[in-house]
């Protein structure tokens, strides 16, 4: 038995990322072809949208059917294709590494996008869940800069998100949509999709500007003012928007144009991960860790604590703002109540669950908690018991999170896997 397990482990350890992507692609393609008939044959009301989790919790009698579906559509095809294509995928991955790394990364991302696209095409629910998950990745990663890499404790992320959401929405609604609040559309809507990045960047900038208001008083002297000032900031932003009739006050702001499609959200998420990863791996970014771990030594080695912290804080806020702008355009409606303490708890949970000081960690934390939140939805109130419990377990057994302090090295990710030396 143990031998068997070891054999399986070692034969799959040779599968490169490319092989797994091939497998996933075949699986989602199979679902396109045979998903509906198979679900019908198994007596399922429709295809299981989230790997069967929701169905199993809702109707326990359907558990066997859901498990068979997941096995036949996902698990077996992915495993078989990944294993069978391994040597081909390894050769291909090695060949691609001879070209500039950009090429290999683009191919991997293209495949990943194809998988996500085909998977989500099967239901509108999947599309929205996927988009919100990608946005959660951006939020979590940007908060990790402050709470992980910089070692401070900031509570203002929902506030930055709100600033970004409202600024980007005001931009697009005022310019491209005819509505009650802003009147006539000022520009032809054909220009819209090209201006959308500008709207998001404007949202990010407004969030960064808000961050400056926190950063200047908080990083002036040593001490833990940031947690309190940033918490106050979150509440101030919320009540400010509630009292701003121009953007709808507590009723919220709607009729955002439908520009946040899956490729757009995916593209921004990739850009966010890439840029943040670049930053934290540069020597300028490593200065954050130095200041966190031993500030006196960092200063003696010419690192300017205040400048380093302020820049990183604004940078993180920018990405939270961009994520907020996307969020508003995915839901096509925002109201201030969204950006309160519950949102804060969600993002903090994702950061600490996934792992501090780690890009992998933020991706793992955001994806797993987003999907878990959706999967456990049928449990209703119990969900709010299970997720915190899980968090507590992680905090006990891995105090810095699941994959903390691990460098996200793209080259290692896309390289071929060698046979393990015996």
């Amino acid at each position, binding site marked *: 038995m143990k031998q068997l397990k070891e054999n399986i482990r070692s034969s799959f350890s040779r599968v490169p990322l490319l092989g797994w992507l091939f497998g996933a692609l075949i699986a989602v393609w199979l679902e396109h072809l045979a998903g509906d008939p198979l679900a019908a044959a198994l007596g399922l009301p429709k295809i299981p949208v989230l790997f069967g989790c929701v169905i199993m919790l809702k109707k326990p009698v359907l558990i066997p059917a859901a498990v068979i579906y997941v096995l036949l559509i996902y698990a077996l095809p992915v495993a078989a294709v990944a294993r069978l294509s391994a040597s081909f995928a390894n050769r291909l991955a090695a060949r691609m590494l001879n070209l500039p790394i950009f090429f290999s990364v683009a191919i991997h991302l293209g495949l990943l996008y194809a998988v996500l696209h085909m998977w989500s095409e099967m239901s509108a629910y999947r599309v929205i869940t996927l988009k919100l998950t990608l946005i959660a990745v951006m939020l979590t990663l940007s908060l990790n800069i402050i709470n992980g890499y910089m070692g401070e404790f900031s509570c203002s992320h929902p506030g930055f998100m709100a600033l970004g959401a409202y600024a980007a929405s005001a931009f697009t609604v005022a310019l491209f949509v005819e509505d009650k609040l802003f009147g006539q559309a000022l520009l032809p809507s054909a220009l819209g999709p090209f201006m959308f990045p500008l709207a998001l960047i404007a949202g990010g900038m407004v969030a960064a500007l808000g961050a400056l208001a926190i950063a200047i008083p908080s990083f002036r002297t040593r001490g833990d003012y940031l947690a309190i000032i940033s918490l106050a900031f979150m509440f101030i932003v919320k009540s400010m928007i509630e009292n701003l009739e121009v953007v709808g006050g507590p009723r919220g702001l709607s009729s955002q144009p439908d520009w946040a499609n899956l490729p757009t959200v995916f593209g921004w998420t990739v850009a966010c991960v890439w*840029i943040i990863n*670049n*930053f934290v791996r*540069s*020597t*300028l*970014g*490593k*200065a954050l*860790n*130095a200041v966190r*771990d*031993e500030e*006196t*030594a*960092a*200063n*003696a*080695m*010419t*690192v*300017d*604590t205040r400048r380093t912290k302020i*820049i990183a804080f604004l940078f993180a806020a920018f990405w939270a703002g961009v994520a907020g702008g996307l969020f508003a355009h995915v839901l096509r409606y925002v109201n201030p109540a969204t950006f309160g303490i519950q949102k804060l708890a969600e993002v903090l949970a994702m950061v600490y669950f996934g792992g501090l*000081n780690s890009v992998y960690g933020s991706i793992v934390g955001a994806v797993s908690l987003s999907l878990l939140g959706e999967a456990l939805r049928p449990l209703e109130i119990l969900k709010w018991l299970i997720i915190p419990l899980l968090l507590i377990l992680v905090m006990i057994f891995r105090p810095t999170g699941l994959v903390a*302090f691990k460098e996200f090295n793209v080259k290692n990710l896309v390289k071929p896997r060698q046979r393990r030396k015996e």
Partner: protein
Amino acid sequence: MPLLRVEKMSLDFGGLRAVNSYDLEIEPGQVRGLIGPNGAGKTTVFNLITGVYRPTEGNIIFDGKKITGLQPHRIASFGLGRTFQNLRLWRHMTVLEHVKLAQYSKISYGLIGAFFGTSGRRREEAAIEDKAYSLLELMGIDHLADQVALNLPYGAQRRVEMARALATEPKILFLDEPTAGMNPEELAQMMAIIRRIHAEFGLAILLIEHRLKMVMELCEIVQTLVFGEVIAEGTPDEIQNDPKVIEAYLGTEALH
């Protein structure tokens, strides 16, 4: 003109006068020693000159510039490098990253480079990495470059600290008990290293030491600090035979 001049520098910690009217002049390339019993205020003198504390009174002039009260990172970037008595290394960071990071103020690729990984950034990162390697070689620890510094044995950690301080390209180096806790063999190696960096970079060095033997061998001029005051200053020979110094050390430590 001396490289560093300290005039009548004093510091009060609440009611306690930790340093009283301290004077110092160091010429370029000079090696000086600062000795004194536990709690005499030696580390505090370093912290004052490097900007960790702001003096209650007095002036510090480095390279013709008044640096009193400036922030430590600015003072460091003018060319005052230091090591710490209780090794202040960064958790999670490798040896190489330590020595690269100490070149922080020389990085010019800016935020654009940091965010987008430009070719300018790759060039500069490669250059500071080369420099880091050459310093690690000088310290004889280049084979440890990819280890997490805190996992290394004590002697190697001391060398990492020294390499890190040198990476800031100091004109004067402050060494705070670089041989504390070392065995005689490590001690001899550390003395050789200090001689080597002095010869190679022509730096001025201010050395705090408990072990008088080391100060006597390395330094041209030695100051003795007791209760925050300089009680004697002179060549190692003069210091060794100064009755006030002998009295201060009597019963606590032998003179060799």
